[in-house]
């Protein structure tokens, strides 16, 4: 199933990776929001698994987690949302992003099997670094799911091989040392880091954290294989609730257009 991810990153423009929190504002509302992401031109879907203690997230995604859990979102709901998405969109890759505890609650093998059965292509677990890969990585790989690793500005050259060992899908470069949604890194530092990462791996490199505007997305698309946008979409969902699909599509389309034209500028 990781072939869907490979195909998404093999297009003639950078892949647009879009994040929303599952179950925000309700589990019933999420499928239409995911469809809106695809309609706007998202190439990869990141479906956030809500957690009571999202310690790597800023206020926007923290609040999305609170809304989702308040609406009663269960892990089974998230897997159903993924399975429904897979049947409607057979070719659009979907990755789950979240924290270790909900993923490990009934054992890593059970989670990996359930995710694979729901058509999930990859998993990003924020608080399982390579040093603790045993906790989840083997189960994901056995189930054919890509364990997507994070690299950050603090990941130096000495550490990078450890991060890449066992990694799959794509490498997610977190461009700022900080929590989600607050600020964006300097473009020059992103370019240096992406070049360094691309030298070290054949995996596609996607860049996220703090990306909000089409211009920012385009600037990253010129140098990276993918652009990740999260908090800005989550804020639209927060503002519009169940009526979010329309505004989400409009916003994502503005990003997708910018990303698509970015590579053309380079080609010309």
């Amino acid at each position, binding site marked *: 199933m990781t072939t869907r991810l490979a195909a998404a990153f093999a297009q003639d423009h950078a892949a647009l990776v879009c994040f929303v929190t599952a179950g925000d504002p309700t589990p019933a509302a999420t499928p239409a929001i995911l469809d809106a992401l695809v309609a706007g031109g998202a190439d990869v879907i990141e479906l956030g698994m809500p*957690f*009571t*203690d*999202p*310690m*790597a997230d*800023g206020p926007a995604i*923290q609040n999305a987690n*609170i809304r989702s*859990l308040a609406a009663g979102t*269960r*892990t089974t709901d998230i897997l159903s949302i993924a399975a429904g998405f897979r049947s409607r969109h057979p070719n659009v890759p979907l990755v789950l992003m979240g*924290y*270790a*505890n*909900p*993923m*490990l*609650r009934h054992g890593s093998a059970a989670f990996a099997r359930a995710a694979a059965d729901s058509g999930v292509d990859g998993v990003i677990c*924020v*608080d*399982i*670094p*390579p*040093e*603790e890969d045993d*906790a989840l990585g083997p189960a994901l790989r056995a189930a054919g799911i890509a364990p997507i*690793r*994070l*690299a*950050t*500005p*603090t*990941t*130096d050259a000495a*550490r990078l091989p450890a*991060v890449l060992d066992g990694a799959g899908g794509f490498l997610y470069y*977190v461009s*700022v*040392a*900080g*929590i989600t949604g*607050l600020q964006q890194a300097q473009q020059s530092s992103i370019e240096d880091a992406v070049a360094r990462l691309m030298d070290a791996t054949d995996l596609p490199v996607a860049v996220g954290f703090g990306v909000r505007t089409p211009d920012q997305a385009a600037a990253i698309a010129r140098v990276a294989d993918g652009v990740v946008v999260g908090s800005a979409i989550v804020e639209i969902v927060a503002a519009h609730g169940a009526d979010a699909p329309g505004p989400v599509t409009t916003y994502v389309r503005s990003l997708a257009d910018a990303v698509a034209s970015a590579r053309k500028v380079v080609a010309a």
Partner: protein
Amino acid sequence: MNVPNSFRTQPDERGHFGQFGGRFVAETLMPLILDLDREYRAAKADPAFKAEFEDLLEHYVGRPSPLYHAERLSAALREGAEPGMGAQVWFKRDELNHTGAHKINNCIGQILLAIRMGKTRIIAETGAGQHGVATAAVCARFGLPCVIYMGARDIERQQPNVFRMKLLGAEVRPVESGAKTLSDAMNEGLRDWVANVHDTFYIIGTAAGPHPYPEMVRDFQSVIGREARAQMLARTGRLPDMLVAAIGGGSNAIGLFHPFLDDAEVAMLGVEAAGHGLDREHAASLAGGFPGVLHGNKTYLLQDEDGQIAEGHSISAGLDYPGIGPEHAWLRDIGRVEYDSATDQDALDAFQLLCRTEGIIPALEPAHAIAAVTRRAKTMRDDQVILANLCGRGDKDIFTVASALGVAI
């Protein structure tokens, strides 16, 4: 079960205590955690570091803390016991430390490490405020800026400690997320740290968090057990029959227990907060939790079927945490330490009993340990010895206790 030759050789180099512990943090923090581990090993092997730590413990903290035979409490408990029963109760008096609790032992160690690493800004989380006050004190002592994250609900019930922290020059940042208690303060501390890794040192207050914190906090707090062991031998020529300590994250308990772990004749009892009762709201993660991952380590957690963390409850803000240090999780599973619990009401009763029999106002945290002592003493012979850790004083809790007793101050 595979029982090791020594109970004192954990964790392994990856920070695992059996299946517990580890380093479950975001990638941004990993390089810093590895750096901290290297620096801690180097400091541990450095006689100058040890000398400075011990000098500050003696002259700034006021160590060694006394070992005290609570004869009137022992006699009171014996009254309700069968003839020949009713153990002698002794206290390790860490409530007499500077800033009023055992927390300062660890803060001294960690701030020396922070300075050694060239960090220029200190952050910490606090529940009852004891760790916050201790951190603020050492920051003032070493002239480092200090930010304390504290749940908004804890701020309400621990006003005296909030003011103490401010007097000591710390900035107290209220945390409004979640249940607004210790766990949420720890989340916010981690968020600050991840955004300020270059200059900031996070002084974690309990023997939990990512490796090497559980080991490091234990080592700094083990001064409690080393002193108590030597003092007990000097005073009575024998080791105690049972050690008792309250457990939130478990730093005072592991500090007392660890130096005794290989003394097979010494039984140990950790006392969790049973809140309104184990069948209702409580904070007893061993009694009512399952293994999981939170705040950097794998341990027993109060959580639901989906791995969502439950809100702990205890009258004691310092015990109101949904997890427990990973070494306790391991010691429970291998059977070396027994764990029990005491309710809010048990703690309030024990609090008043100690006030009246010994003239000591304990914090609500060790009041849970004393509650367990009152139960256990009656089941032990009158020539047996219980040593309990009186890990904090109760000045901070008088408003909470007054309110629970229906008294207007």
